[in-house]
């Protein structure tokens, strides 16, 4: 008998939303000890379906039909008082961003002990002891220290382990994990996936794992549900869905996944360096807030040197905190480097200021990660695209013409000119971001995690667009990313950074398939879904 059984579940969105239902006619079962992955792009209704099981739908969103049967009991529309006794005890949940999912003002130990308190389990002293055991069990080093720590004192991976410890406290029958590794580095992600898999084995717990990452699905799922626009389009065993997808949407999604084995080939000999970076260093000192307090020193970038050749794309990869973004920001002088030279066409921009810097800066433009927060929400697209041109003394009418041409170039309609950023989807917004960067006819584009916030299918389109523009406009590009698969797809050479230093540089094929350093190898090993990629190649 299945542990959880959902039949004909409809979840209605409040009036005024872009569609009437967040999820429609959802049917699935979960067996004890099974890992069920729900995959889909943003807005597919995958999180809503899981939240409905917990009885934690956001305000205004309601389940309007169907049944959710848990352990023989109908739990949809169960009174809040009864749901409370199930939540945290029989089923529990972990979230995407472990920092915001933990109360910043409470010690980790107290937050775990709270679960026992909520369900009247154990005495106060036993709660502490059990919390310690749990922290140990989820693999936190030095649980004695961690139990007294506040969330901000732990790393991202440790925080997610704390969340898992909390979710496991009362040995629930079902764990719902909503994108639990999306905000983590690959190496940490691999550890957390392993942990969840082990716990499922040792406790016979059913897991509903929500993700948009097929690599993760391939590594962990027993069964898979694919959702699109609120409906289940395909369901089956992991092997069946991943290797022999039947629905065109599933096929399109799988086809859009960037792969390590599909890397950019470039046999062109390297031309002249368009940008030369020599000994770039940046140290951040954060104020302690007090008059005499000790300052914290972070060596973000240490002695970074490389050449970017004309028409070349270099990928800078590394885990969070490796300094890859700071390098990008130093190059356009959004951050002042402490040491080092940046030569553009032979001229050092580091000592430049005023007019000279402005003139050189237009040759380098940035594309940012979050296409929403990097566009002024109160400015129409026409203003976003012409602002730079007008600042560099282009007459208004000419600037408007140029803006329309740019929109055409990035595949948007000219009618977009009069609209505001919020009227566009994430992918379209990133296209606007690219058009903005191209407005000043730069020769170098610095893209900082430019596709990280996008769904795979959109990601693929934007990457294609960037590759196409690069050739058509003869651009050179620095592509900063944490995702080695994305780097593989677009980069000619790859720079691997760790703790502010370059640990490896080389052609994409070499770095990805025959790396020189153990660190690069460990990054590669941690990428989820590699067996799957090989299996997929065989199928094809």
């Amino acid at each position, binding site marked *: 008998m299945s542990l959880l059984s959902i039949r004909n579940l409809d979840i209605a969105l409040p009036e005024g939303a872009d569609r009437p239902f967040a999820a429609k006619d959802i049917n699935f079962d979960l067996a004890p000890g099974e890992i069920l992955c729900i995959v889909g792009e943003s807005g597919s209704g995958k999180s809503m379906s899981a939240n409905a099981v917990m009885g934690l739908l956001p305000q205004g969103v309601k389940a309007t039909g169907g049944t959710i049967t848990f352990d023989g009991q109908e739990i949809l529309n169960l009174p809040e008082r009864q749901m409370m006794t199930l939540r945290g005890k029989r089923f529990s949940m972990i979230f995407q961003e472990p920092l915001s*999912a933990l109360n910043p003002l409470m010690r980790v130990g107290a937050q775990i002990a709270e679960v026992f308190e909520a369900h009247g389990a154990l005495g106060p002293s036993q709660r502490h002891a059990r919390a310690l055991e749990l922290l140990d069990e989820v693999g936190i080093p030095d649980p004695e220290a961690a139990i007294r720590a506040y969330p901000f004192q732990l790393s991202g991976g440790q925080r997610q382990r704390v969340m898992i410890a909390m979710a496991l406290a009362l040995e629930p029958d079902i764990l719902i994990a909503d994108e639990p590794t999306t905000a983590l580095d690959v190496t940490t992600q691999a550890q957390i996936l392993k942990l969840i898999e082990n716990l499922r084995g040792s406790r016979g717990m059913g897991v509903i794992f929500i993700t948009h990452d097929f690599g993760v699905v391939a590594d962990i799922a027993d069964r898979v549900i694919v959702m699109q626009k609120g409906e289940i389009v395909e369901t089956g065993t992991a092997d069946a869905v991943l290797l022999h997808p039947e629905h065109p949407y599933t096929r399109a999604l799988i086809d859009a996944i960037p792969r390590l084995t599909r890397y950019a080939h470039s046999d062109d000999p390297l031309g002249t360096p368009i940008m030369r970076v020599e000994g770039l260093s940046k140290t951040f000192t954060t104020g302690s807030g007090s008059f*005499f307090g000790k300052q914290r020193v972070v060596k973000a970038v240490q002695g970074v040197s490389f050449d970017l050749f004309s028409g070349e794309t270099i990928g800078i990869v590394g885990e969070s905190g490796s300094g890859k973004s700071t390098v990008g920001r130093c190059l356009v002088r959004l951050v002042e480097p402490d040491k080092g030279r940046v030569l553009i066409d032979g001229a050092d921009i580091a000592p430049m200021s005023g007019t000279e810097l402005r003139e050189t800066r237009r040759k380098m433009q940035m594309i940012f990660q979050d296409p929403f927060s990097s566009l002024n929400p109160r400015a129409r697209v026409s203003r976003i695209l012409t602002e730079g041109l007008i600042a560099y003394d282009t007459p208004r009418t000419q600037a408007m013409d140029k803006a329309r041409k740019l929109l055409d170039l990035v595949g948007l309609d000219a009618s977009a000119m009069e609209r505001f950023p919020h009227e566009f989807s994430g992918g379209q917004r990133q296209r606007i971001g690219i058009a903005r960067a191209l407005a000043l006819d730069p020769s170098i584009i610095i893209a900082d995690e430019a596709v990280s916030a996008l769904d795979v299918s959109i990601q693929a389109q934007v990457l294609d667009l960037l590759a196409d523009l690069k050739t058509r406009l003869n651009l050179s590009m620095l592509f900063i990313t944490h995702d080695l698969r994305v780097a593989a797809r677009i980069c000619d050479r790859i720079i691997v950074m760790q703790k502010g230093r370059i640990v490896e540089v080389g052609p994409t094929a070499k770095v990805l398939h025959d790396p020189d350093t153990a660190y690069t190898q460990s990054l590669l090993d941690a990428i989820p879904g590699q067996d799957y990629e090989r299996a997929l190649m065989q199928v094809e």
Partner: protein
Amino acid sequence: MLRFILGRLVKSVFILLAILIFNFLLIHAAPGDPAAVMAGEAGAADEKFLADLRTRFGLDQPLYIQLWTYLKGAVQLDLGFSYRQQMPVAELIATRLPATLLLTGVAFLLSLVLGVIAGVAASARQGSWGDTIISTLALLFYATPLFWVALMASLVFSVWLGWLPGFGYSTIGAGYTGFAHVLDVAKHLVLPATTLGLFFTAIYMRMTRSSMLEVSRLDFVKTARAKGLRRSVIQRRHILRNALLPVITLAGLQAGQIFGGAILTETVFAWPGIGRLMFEAINQRDYAVILGVFYISGAMVLLFNLITDVVYVIVDPRIRLTK
């Protein structure tokens, strides 16, 4: 922690010095000659008498010498002499300060407690009747001028209803001692403290309400619900504690405003504090007293800000432990 407080104290001393110099220069830039006022009150105003007065009080000295003399004194808590009251200013302020501290302290605590309670109550039932009533009242308190509320409160509760005394610090000539005295002062305190506190209650209520609503949408509140915690526990332990952080910041910033409000309140209710002293001193061009009150109230505001910072550090571990 000790180092933090020490650091802030050093900073405060410099700020206080700057306040002293600025106020001194500001007041001397204002029109009005104290010697002329004194001479007028003495009934004789020939040039020689004026010159004598100026010499006697050092008013004929160049400005920088006057400033230097003043600063030297201020550091030793010698704030000059009030010719009008015939008393050293420091002594004058010392007799008046406790009454003001009592008034502002009670008003502050009252508004903070009431404001937070009202804010929590309003946010718990967002959009309900209760929320609407509380929010409307807050808007009303916020928008009504303090002096008008003071006059009306005095008129209604003291003159018409006769429930509470409408002026003064204690009943003159009653000679109460011990508990009877405390009760008498408390009765006198009700109207001025409530009047002064209303405006701030409104501010703290609105801040608490919006902050509670904001925090309740955060992820960790969902985590708390996923644990199966009761609503009341989530409200108190998770939402309120986090929502109080901006309220604390605001409360610290408002400390100076409470002193400003005290001038009006004390004047209307004839409360014998430094606010009223200030009011009288302005009318009488009593420079030394005005400067003295500025000095003390400046010091008080700095002290409140320091207390706010310390409270903030205690409440928020992210600030305490990243040092």
